[in-house]
């Protein structure tokens, strides 16, 4: 479903991604781990071109994302993204946050979008918050809304950029639960996270990035039970 070929990203002199190649299958849940500054967020942000790759190619659903002729807005409608800092729109109600994109992109009419949003909000237990503003919600609630907002576009892939890193510890669970259910329903997911428990339990495949290079990948059992790479061994020793 997503094919990444020799992806390289530079910020000026700094080489953040150094020739990363990766293939993500439909229905797969891939968790990306690595020390901070390893390029995992940049890798994720390159997938929907929030960062423009310096070189390399990203092919999504058979369409080259990096081709200048590609309608990037259309491609992004099929890729939901959840951010570390939620990035809800503070000037709109929760319901409006969820319906803005489906309505404006012409995907649904207003009534359908609202019905869809209310159904999804109900599934994460936030139906009664529809008329609230983001500032009135807790961190965990905001992140669940952010997931619903992305799902309202009915995406084929969901990208999660450290979705629990900005949350109070007692709110991490409620967000991870929503993500687990999503994975069980067969959603294709790419998750950058420090939650090793989540990686172990939910991931089909774990990818280890360090220094902009993809150093090791495998099933959670392989990565956590029998890591081969030296850097991965020392990383796991520190975080587990």
């Amino acid at each position, binding site marked *: 479903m997503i094919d990444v070929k020799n992806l390289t990203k530079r910020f000026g002199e700094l080489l953040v991604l150094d020739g990363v190649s990766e293939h993500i299958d439909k229905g797969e849940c891939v968790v990306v781990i690595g020390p901070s500054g390893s390029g995992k967020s940049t890798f994720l942000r390159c997938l*929907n*071109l*929030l960062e*423009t790759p310096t070189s390399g190619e990203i092919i999504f659903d058979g369409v080259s994302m990096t081709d*200048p002729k590609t309608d990037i*807005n*259309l*491609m*992004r*409608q*099929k*890729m*939901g*993204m959840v*951010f570390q*800092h939620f*990035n*809800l*729109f*503070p*000037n*709109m109600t929760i319901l409006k946050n969820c319906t*803005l*994109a489906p309505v*404006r*992109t012409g995907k649904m009419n207003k009534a359908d979008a609202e019905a869809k949003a209310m159904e999804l909000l109900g599934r994460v237990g936030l139906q009664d918050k529809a008329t609230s*503003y983001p*500032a*009135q919600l807790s961190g965990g609630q905001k992140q669940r809304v952010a997931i619903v*907002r*992305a799902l309202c*576009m009915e995406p084929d892939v969901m990208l999660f950029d450290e979705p629990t890193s900005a949350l109070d510890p007692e709110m991490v669970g409620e967000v991870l639960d929503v993500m687990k259910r999503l994975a069980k329903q067969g959603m294709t997911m790419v998750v950058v996270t420090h939650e090793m428990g989540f990686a172990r339990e939910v991931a089909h495949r774990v990818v280890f990035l360090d220094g902009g290079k993809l150093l090791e990948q495998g099933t959670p059992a392989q990565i956590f039970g029998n890591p081969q790479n030296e850097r991965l061994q020392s990383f796991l020793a520190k975080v587990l």
Partner: protein
Amino acid sequence: MLSANEPVTFWQRLYVYFYQAFIYKDRWQQYLNGVKTTLFVTAIALLIGVILGLIVAIVRTAHDQQRLGHKNWLLGLLNSIFQVYVTVIRGTPMMVQLMIMGFVIFATSKDFALVGALTLGINSGAYTAEIIRGGLMSVDAGQTEAGRSLGLNYMDTMRFIIVPQAVKAILPSLGNEFIVLLKDTSLISVIGGKELIYAARGVISRTYEPMFPFLGAAFIYLVLVMVFTWLLGIFERRLRASDRR
């Protein structure tokens, strides 16, 4: 009123000056007409300034936010033109701009107030553009990313997400710019615009007594600015009421 050879007290003289400046021959009407022109010029200049400022700010912000390898040549050209515009307008005195417009470019025009309003509007646009641009840039980059990641195009992201949030940051400085604009209308008297200062000087040319006409004009400007500040305060409070933070 005053008969010859009769000594007058200080207070009597003051009263006579006041009477001559405002009441004699209904001269207060001249100030009133001046205020009308002042407000007319302010309104026109404000309109031109805000529209011009908005266009310049959006083009310049859009230009700066282009993705690498997706440079639009038209946007680049407009950006360069607007950069020159902002540089020239901010780099030359208001008075000189008025004289060039009034005595060179529109030398044959007799509608001095309108030429003045146009000049002030063009001048105000340059400052307003930078105020609006600052406001747009003050909105967290994550908001743009969230909008774009949902598949919204640049204009929709601006219109529904960025601009509504930027307005709150922009409003105080924009109010300040409006006040400066209102007071700067006094300059158009140099090209013959018949606004408040023009009226005051008209009275002085009859009475040869400058104190009350100028004090009166200053007082009127002060009242206008205070009313304006009060209205702006109401508007800001209403925006904050919908904020719900």
